[in-house]
Each structure stands twice: as C-alpha cells, then as structure tokens.
C-alpha cells in the first residue's frame, strides 16, 4: 500500500517533459505577421487573424514537430479595400486557396531551447523550404489559466515571387519578412 501511495505521489509531481508532449495552437495568441516594402516609400505591416495547428515537443530527445494552418481569408492590414485586394487572385487568391500551411521537417535545439524550425511553407499550392529562426521560447504553466503552454517568437524571410505572387513586381517589394508569435497549450 505504501508503495502504491509513493508511486501515485511521484506521478503527481510536476516533471520535465520526458516524453513527447502534444500541444494545440492557441488561436488567441498565435498570429503570423508580415512586412513588405510599399513601392519603396514605406514598409507595410499586416497579419493573419486566424490560424490553427499542432505541436509536439520532446525536450529530452530534442525532437519535435510543428504544423500550422493559416486562414488566408483572415488577412488584416487595417484597410478593408486593401485586404480585399490582398485576398484576390492578384495576391493570396484566398477564394481558391483558403489555407497557407507550414509543416516542420526539422526542429533544431540549442540546449533545452528550440532555436530553428526548418519546414515547408505552402502558399497557393506552391511549396518551398523555409527556415524560421526562433528568437525566444518558453514552456511553463500560464499563471492566468493554469494550463501548461509553450510559446515561440520566430521569423523568416521569403520572396513572394517564389510562391507565384507576382502582382506589382518590382514596385511592390518581392522580399517579405514573416514573423510568427506562436502559443500552444498542452493537450
């Protein structure tokens, strides 16, 4: 009986992730942002308001995976007409291709921290390899909702022409900076 109680007590203790943990993207705290040159005059910022996905992390084995699906129709640049144009076939063609996806192929750890995510970014049926540099990472219990969560800040640079988004080139920039704020809650 004592052994049973002892075993139960050990299991109840908070422990580091010994096994792969599964997480679900928290859409309220996950936003892909982008920046692009507007005719060289200024840098325009925008974001996608809706995204979903899954993470797995095994810190002990230094392995993991990330899958994020971004709703292309949720693009938001704080200008309704511009958003319509960005959703049109000139840019993201969101009516025909409503989803943008990122699927990791390799998760790079430095110590206990993820520092890079290599993966495939698919926009409008075109898939290209992209490396997201992870600039910060934290896994802990969220003090507000008491749930265990992992969060990342990550960024990458892509050329939109690689994905067939050619409208307005070269006046509207080809280089696009992507920034991801990602939070995921442990299942």
């Amino acid at each position, binding site marked *: 009986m004592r052994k049973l109680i002892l075993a139960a007590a050990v299991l109840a203790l908070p422990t580091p992730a010994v096994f792969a943990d599964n997480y679900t993207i928290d859409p309220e705290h996950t936003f892909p942002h982008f920046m692009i040159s507007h005719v060289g005059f200024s840098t325009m910022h925008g974001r996608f308001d809706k995204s979903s996905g899954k993470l797995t992390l095994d810190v002990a084995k230094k392995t993991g995976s990330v899958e994020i699906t971004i709703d292309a129709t949720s693009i938001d640049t704080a200008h309704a007409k*511009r958003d319509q*144009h960005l959703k049109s076939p000139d840019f993201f063609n969101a009516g025909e291709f409503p989803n943008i996806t990122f699927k990791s192929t390799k998760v790079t750890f430095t110590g206990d921290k993820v520092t890079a995510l290599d993966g495939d970014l698919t926009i409008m049926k075109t898939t290209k390899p992209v490396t997201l540099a992870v600039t910060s990472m934290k896994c802990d219990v969220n003090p507000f909702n008491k749930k265990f969560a992992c969060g990342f800040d990550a960024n990458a640079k892509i050329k939109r022409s690689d994905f067939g988004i050619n409208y307005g080139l070269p006046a509207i920039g080809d280089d696009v900076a992507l920034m991801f704020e990602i939070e995921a809650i442990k299942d």
Partner: protein
Amino acid sequence: MTNILNFPEIQSVVLPLLAAVLIGAGAERLGRLNHGIGMLAGFIVTVLFVNGVELLPLTAARKIIVLGIAAAIIGAIADQRGTRWLRRPLHFVTLSVLASAWVLGAALLRKSGLAMLAAGVGIVLYTAWLTYWLDRVRHDELRATAATVSLGMGTGLAAIVGSSALFGQLAISIGAASGGVMLLALLQKQNKTGSVLTLPAGVLLGLIGCTTVAFAELPWTVLVGLGLIPLAAQFMPTSQRRSRWLQATVLTVSTLALAGLVLGYAWYLANGSSYS
C-alpha cells in the same frame, strides 16, 4: 524601356492592340482565321506579362488561359470545316458546364447546397450566354469586334473595381486586341471574322467574369449588365449604306456606352472606390 513595359496600360492595351494588328495582318493568308489569331496573339502578349509562361500549379486563372487557347482551336476547326454541331445552344451549355466545372468546381464544392447550386447554374449560364450570342455575330466582323471590345473593356474595368487587377488586365487585353482586329477589318475591307474569334472571347470573358465574382469582390449582378453587350452589338441598327468606319463607330460607341453604365453600377456598389 523596362519601366514603360511595367505599366499595366502598356501591357494590357497598347501591346495587345499592336500584336493583334501585326499578327493578324501577318496571318492574312490563313483566310478567316487571321482575325482570331490576331485577337489571341494580343491576349497572349498580356498573359506573358501578368503570368509568364508557367502553367503550374494550375490555378483558376491559368485554367482560363488554357481554355481560351483551346476554344480558339475549336473555333478554328469549326470555321474551317463549317461544322454545325457547335451552333446549338445546348452545345454551348455543355461546353460551359465542362469549362466551369474545371475552373470553379473546387470553389463551388466549398459552398453549401443551395448556394452551390445557384452559383454553379449562374456560372454556366453566363458563359454559355456570352459564347452563344457572340457566335451569332461571328460572321459580321464589325458587330463581333464591337461586342468583344466593349465586353473586354467592361469586364476588365469591372474586375479592377472588384479588386482583381490580374483578371482586369486579362479581360482588357481581349478588348484591346479586338480593337486591333476591328482596325484590321476596316483597313482590309474583308470579312474574316469567325468562331476562332468569338468562341475564345466568349469563353475567356465569361469565365473571367465569373471567377472575379467567385474569388474577388465583383457583385454577380454586374454580369447581368455585361451580358447585354452582345445583344446590343447584334441588334443595334446600322445602315449598310453608311461607310464601314461610321458603322464601326456607332456599334463601338453604343456598346461601350452600355459597358460604361454597367461599370458605373459596379463602381456604385463598390462605394465609389477601388484600391491600388
């Protein structure tokens, strides 16, 4: 020079018009095919600017381009062989069903029941309507080109108001190239228009209009107005005793005026603004 070629007006109006005149004149030996070849050449010039030569991944826009070229080939065969099978309304509807299903089928399947049915029927009817009525004027080069000039310009400018410059440029190029073909017809004083011109124009402009409604922000009611343009071109009275230049002017101005009214309506629905 590179900067000038980047202007949409050059890509979609000036170069297609010039290409239609030059290629159409160069293809004079091909008889009735030369006007259609001229129009298609003008369209392809714009395709090269806005799309390049890539056809994969096969987006809706690229499928429309492929179907336009296929329609020109079918039209050329129909012209050369004088086949009557293409002329029945049911056949235009059948071709429109196949084309629409290929271009917009996936988008339609994402809609629910009645909305899917209504959109599907509307797309098929609009494309079939344009191809049928344009085919009715295929042997009258002035009425045919007046219709395709105005329908191309109307569809293209409406697409721009509806937030798609890509479809706008493609449609406008058909209008501009048709203008080149009309000029050629007036200069050559020969009637060489046929299905090789009207069938691809109908297929391209029908599908571009419907796809702009489906994937951009063009209200479907605008297509109802644009659909009247081929009818206006067919039934607008002109005197055969007048000069061909005057007839062409009357037909073009009257159909362009109708396109202008439709465009004004589209502009009104878009709250008087487009974005660039």
